[in-house]
């Protein structure tokens, strides 16, 4: 626990001089003003964090609401609305000490009653939220005084701390006694974050304006405007014509289409590893994939570097396990599977697969090695990945067929019913290393996420231990071991971690890519007065 706070402090100490330095270089301090126009493919649906399930809603709500804690640029949990917190010796009780004097948009002070209200709401069976899971572990929540909020857990639960983000802080004085599903609060939220909702035109744009009384100091940029442009090609043209300041690029746009003088003069491109990875998962109930040597052989037969080059144009890295390489819990020393077709053939032979009849395909007991991989429709990257794998596997004598299926049918008729042999999919990662839901053997039931049916007693034990351990070093050791086992077992062939590729107009200063991405310090972005584009009356 102490480790967390100290590192947060250190991060702060390093951040501050860095900011100052930049200001000195520019000759002046950061200026206030200007607007950033962001392109988004989808509209937000509702601006109540606990009810929202889409990324856009969370992005906007994240600027309007704060949580008790948040992640900083280096993925450390730091205080947000809570100045600090204590965890009891036994790990069961967390006590948050809240900031004083933080005001909701309507001037009412934020207190622990708001946290308690939010907690009661999210655990209320009538609230249609998708996030109640973490809060079910809470035995009791209480607000002993306006600036203290205390929660007691049934058993130590390490991911608990991070769950106290902005899901559960809502203005009690406005929402109490109302039916959360029927209020218009989700369209007209009253928050306490750096920005306030000014205008929301469905499927058109969302306009946020700075909060002058924000407790961390008002953000430098006056406005944040999100334009909803569903078509990626149009969005790129808008960027080119000057209608957008910030959008996410795809690898081709990043590598080729933005390599012109216009873009070099007006924009700056960033790249950092995204919180996701793509994998080839095997249905471990299928006799074909029961043998670990077969899975290892397939991993050797696939050239991950080639997929990164071919599919991501080099804008990503090969994955070695279920985490991205710049996270503190990533283990760089696990067994790797470089492209090695000879080794693949040898392993397959050991497992009894060889080309006995000389037709070019491997066979065993008269049956050819053939399987079908399924993936969801509309994801070109996964399609191309599948084709490259198909070609590589053919070279070692394995026949792989590819089938793409519309998302809902894909989930309902194939994944949920376990009617698949292998699958190409991706996982989005959280900031916490807990991956219990994906790998624990108790999570193989219908609709649960360990749909490949992975069972390993040691991993099961470690996953539970990881959830009960708060000490970062100890946790790290636990998750390092899990990564070693997964690398050995190869229940997935971990393929690649793609990069996020944002492009942002050059006039914005203060952007500092970190493992958390770039938006963690958004409220400290600024534009020098003489470069400001949108001057507000």
């Amino acid at each position: 626990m102490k480790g967390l706070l100290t590192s947060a402090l250190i991060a702060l100490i390093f951040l501050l001089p860095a900011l100052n330095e930049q200001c000195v270089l520019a000759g002046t301090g950061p200026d206030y003003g200007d607007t950033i126009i962001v392109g988004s493919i989808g509209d937000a649906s509702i601006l109540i964090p606990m009810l929202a399930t889409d990324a856009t809603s969370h992005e906007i709500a994240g600027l309007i609401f704060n949580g008790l804690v948040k992640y900083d640029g280096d993925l450390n949990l730091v205080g947000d609305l809570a100045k600090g917190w204590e965890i009891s010796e036994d790990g069961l009780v967390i006590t948050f000490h809240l900031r004083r004097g933080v005001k909701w948009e309507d001037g009412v002070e934020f207190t622990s009653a708001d946290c308690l209200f939010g907690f009661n709401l999210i655990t209320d069976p009538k609230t249609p939220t998708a996030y109640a899971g973490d809060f079910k572990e809470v035995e009791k929540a209480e607000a002993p005084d306006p600036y203290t909020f205390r929660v007691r857990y049934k058993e130590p639960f390490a991911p608990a701390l991070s769950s106290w983000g902005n899901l559960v802080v809502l203005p009690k004085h406005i929402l109490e006694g109302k039916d959360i599903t029927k209020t218009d609060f989700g369209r007209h939220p009253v928050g306490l974050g750096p920005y306030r909702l000014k205008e929301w035109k469905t499927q058109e744009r969302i306009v946020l304006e700075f909060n002058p009384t924000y407790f961390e100091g008002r953000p430098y940029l006056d406005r944040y405007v999100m334009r909803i442009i569903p078509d990626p090609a149009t969005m790129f043209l808008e960027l080119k014509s000057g209608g957008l300041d910030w959008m996410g690029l795809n690898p081709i746009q990043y590598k080729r289409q933005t390599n012109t003088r216009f873009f070099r003069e007006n924009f700056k491109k960033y790249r950092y590893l995204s919180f996701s990875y793509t994998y080839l998962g095997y249905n471990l109930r299928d006799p074909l994939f029961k043998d670990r040597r077969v899975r290892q052989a397939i991993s050797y037969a696939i050239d991950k570097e080639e997929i990164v080059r071919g599919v991501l144009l080099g804008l990503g890295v090969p994955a070695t396990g279920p985490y991205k390489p710049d996270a503190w819990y990533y283990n760089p020393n696990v067994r790797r599977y470089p492209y090695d077709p000879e080794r693949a053939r040898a392993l397959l032979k050991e497992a009894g697969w060889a080309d006995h009849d000389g037709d070019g395909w491997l066979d065993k007991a008269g049956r050819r090695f053939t399987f079908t991989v399924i993936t969801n429709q509309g994801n070109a990257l996964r399609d191309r990945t599948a084709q490259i794998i198909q070609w590589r596997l053919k070279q070692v004598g394995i026949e792989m067929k590819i089938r793409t299926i519309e998302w809902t049918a894909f989930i309902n008729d194939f994944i949920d019913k376990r009617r698949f042999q292998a699958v190409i999919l991706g996982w989005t990662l959280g900031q916490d290393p807990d991956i219990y839901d994906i790998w624990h053997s108790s999570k193989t039931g219908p609709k649960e996420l360990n749909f490949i049916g992975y069972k390993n007693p040691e991993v099961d034990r470690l996953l539970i231990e990881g959830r009960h351990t708060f000490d970062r070093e100890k946790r790290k050791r636990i998750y390092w071991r899990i990564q070693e086992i997964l690398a050995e077992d190869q229940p997935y062939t971990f393929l690649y971690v793609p990069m996020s590729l944002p492009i942002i107009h050059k006039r914005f200063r203060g952007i500092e890519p970190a493992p958390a991405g770039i938006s963690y310090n958004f409220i400290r972005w600024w534009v020098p007065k003489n470069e400001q584009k949108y001057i507000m009356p």
Partner: protein
Amino acid sequence: MEIITFIAKKLLWLIPTFFGITVISFTVMHLAPGEPMALQANFNPKMTPEMRERLRRAYGLDKPLYVQYARWLKGLVTFDLGRSFSPDRRPVWDKIKERLPVTLLINCLSMLLIIVVSVPLGVAAAVRHNSPFDHITTVLVYLGYAAPSFWLALLAMILFGIKLEWLPISGLHSLMGYSAMSTMEKVMDWARHLVLPVTVSAVGGLAGLSRYMKSSMLEVLRQDYILTARAKGLPENRVIYRHALRNALLPLITILGLSVPGLIGGSVIFESLFAIPGVGQLMWSSVMARDYPVLMGNLVIVAVLTLLGNLLADIGYALADPRVRKGIEGEQ
């Protein structure tokens, strides 16, 4: 008098047709794999089975299909389309209402453009049948018809938006400084934004209507009364625009009637490309999310309009063409 019974009869027929449509849509919709909570619940590690059940109950999905339909129907009778299944839980009518005007505006403008261009084009092609003009225009309108509209739209955006910088690329009006504009400036701003979407969506429709117009005109020009008109020594213009065109326009009524539902249908492709917040996008996303109430709401509106369009076409035809009117009277 006869015309009134004719309309009343047609109207009565609409009721069972309408309910047939809703029953079939409701059933087919529920046959598609997946459920409304799928987007929220699938692959969400925080989603527990109890929560899933709770959501199902909240949406009324735990009841048998006929109960769900009865419930929906009960709402419909009181003009309540229910609430959306998406996380915002807004009333369906609110969601559709805020998108209708834009879609109507664009579709009407584009329909108007199609008529204004293809009627004269069709007439001219009929009069100059088999001339180079006829052939060239035929090729051109078919090119417009065959070219994928998203491709045309992107080319137009690149040309007019980026290379020439004459027109904005997407959206309905300027983002910055719009509120400070005078009414006239606002209208101009909208007009500039609408040029591309309206034109591009009209291009694909030219072929159909102008060819229809042409063949109908050719048909009329072969009639005896045209010969008579010419024999009377009437000037050619008068023959064509007075005598021929009026009759040739008759089939157009049917086509226009049939295109009424299309006016609110909206097109996903266009709306996505030009970032227009219309009905098409709403429909598309509710299909993807299995948002049954919004889907049904949309279907009801389209169904009503289709039926009304058919009815209007029938009536319009009856009013315009004495032969049809006679036919009705003959039936009596």
